[in-house]
């Protein structure tokens, strides 16, 4: 995939030149941690699956949602290249069309990992914040990173596919607005399954945001996993892997067939 490395480094230079976008991407998740954490500070801990406080409970959800949002926006980022002109240059250069899209997907993944690191640090220094009461092993951090990265790949691919085919900005932003609330609230990102209405619960089970949130939550709360917890985490990561792989292949095929100019 010629073009992938130069285009990814272009994305990283642009990111480094616009630190504001990194910060604005962090404001919302930071509010969630701080606001929900203090507002629901006396949330009955019986619902929290063993977490010592609400922040420790929701951090997995907040990291997942941050990943989804950053990924969605970098997926649709191609519309700006189309509007401002660089896409025309790339389309008439001898590079694979897919490298244009994958440069965005990969650079956004890197970006998400940085955001995740900052958010974890922020959650730890808050009063009554994130606590790893049962430790946090190398394996646990591998689970966390894998879940966040797979989720990022899923949503950046999905939204790249949309942006490759749809050229109207209004349509794309319409879709973004339509999906963001259900993705958060019809999932186990913020609230325990125990307090959800039955119908939400039955949909939330199939939301990839739930798989990632629950996987991260399980390792953060428990540190060392029991056999059944391990099986659950493995299953969630498997679902995420299958979905991410399918969407990446689809993105490759669709982008190679042509990117709307």
């Amino acid at each position, binding site marked *: 995939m*010629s*073009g992938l*490395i*130069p*285009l990814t480094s*272009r994305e990283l*230079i*642009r990111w480094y*030149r*616009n630190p504001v976008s990194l910060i604005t991407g962090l404001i919302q998740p930071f509010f969630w941690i701080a606001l929900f954490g203090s507002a629901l500070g006396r949330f009955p801990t019986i619902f929290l699956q063993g977490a010592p406080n609400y922040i420790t409970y929701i951090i997995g959800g907040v990291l997942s949602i941050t990943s989804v949002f950053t990924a969605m926006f970098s997926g649709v980022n191609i519309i700006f290249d189309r*509007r*401002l*002109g*660089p896409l*025309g*240059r*790339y*389309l*008439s*250069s*001898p*590079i*694979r069309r897919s490298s244009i899209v994958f440069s965005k997907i990969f650079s956004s993944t890197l970006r998400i990992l940085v955001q995740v690191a900052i958010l974890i640090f922020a959650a730890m220094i808050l009063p009554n914040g994130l606590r790893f009461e049962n430790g946090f092993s190398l394996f646990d951090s591998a689970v966390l990173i894998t879940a966040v990265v797979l989720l990022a790949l899923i949503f950046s691919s999905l939204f790249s596919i949309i942006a490759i085919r749809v050229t109207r900005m209004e349509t794309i932003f319409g879709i973004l607005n339509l999906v963001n609330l259900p993705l958060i609230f019809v999932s186990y990102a913020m609230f325990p399954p125990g307090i959800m209405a039955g119908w939400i619960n039955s949909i939330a089970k199939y939301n990839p945001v739930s798989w990632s949130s629950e996987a991260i939550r399980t390792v953060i709360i428990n540190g060392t996993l029991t056999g059944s917890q391990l099986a659950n985490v493995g299953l969630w990561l498997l679902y995420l892997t299958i979905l991410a792989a399918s969407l990446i292949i689809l993105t490759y095929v669709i982008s190679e067939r*042509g990117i709307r*100019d």
Partner: protein
Amino acid sequence: MESIITTENLTKIYRGSIKAVDSLTVQIRKGEVYGILGPNGAGKTTFIGMLTTRVTPTSGRATVAGLDILKESLKVRKRIGVVPQDLTTDEDLTGYENLKLVSRFYDITANEANRRIDQLLNMVQLQKHSHRRVKTYSGGMRKRLELIVGLVNDPEILFLDEPTLGLDVNTRMQMWEYIRDLRKRLDVTIILTSHYLEEIDALADRVSIMDNGKILVTDTPSNLKNSMKEDYITITFASPDDLKLGEKFFSNNEKRFSGINTLRVKVPNSDETMPDLINYFSSHSVKITRITIQKPTLDEVFLEYTGRSLRDEERGDARKSMFTIGRLRR
């Protein structure tokens, strides 16, 4: 002469059944500057889009440097340079970074790329500004940068789609110099679209006049102009008596208009008329104070083939360049 681009009934129909390019069959020769002159919406950009593999043809075939534009599009893109009508550089990168990025799309070593980039920056006098972000460039600087971005891979064929659109007269002339210079130093075939008559006239070896997706005629600019057979000779005489004598010379010419001591006539070929006229004036001692010869421009040619004048289009040009800038700033 050897053809470097050939097309056969190349057609593009957009949704809504707009025939943007209508069954074009052309041959572009190796080493020439081939101009395409046409008003807004003629289909110039679409035609170039297909040759540069950006736009998929609806039907027909084309080869560029002997390569099929559909089956070997990646190879075609290696051999061509493109300067599209819209700006393509990344505003958040510097001029140098933009050039460097594009050079990495080709199989050129970093050293070779740096050497070329330096040379190109020098050519368009941007070396001083190469480490500024493109965001801070003026319109003319950006167009100059666009030109050399299309040249980093040392292409065999260069496509220039309205390279001077929206530039002021001085900057435009400067761009013409760069393009002429390119032609001299590099062995490159140039395909140039424009709706500026003077630009095509100044730069193109051959020109196709395009309208509504069709090419109406192709020839050298001078052949096209000569074929119009309408030169104007305007003479100012020293006195009314001289005018009378002068009118006698043109007595058989219907297309004759007289003013106070001046005479304006239309002749098929002034190059042939002038020697006779000079001899006549000296043998009859006619005193003249001024003589002007006006040859036809490509606009007369355009008018002849399309029934419309391109000059009227140029007036709409300010609006178009505003639109282009609007599009960039959005």
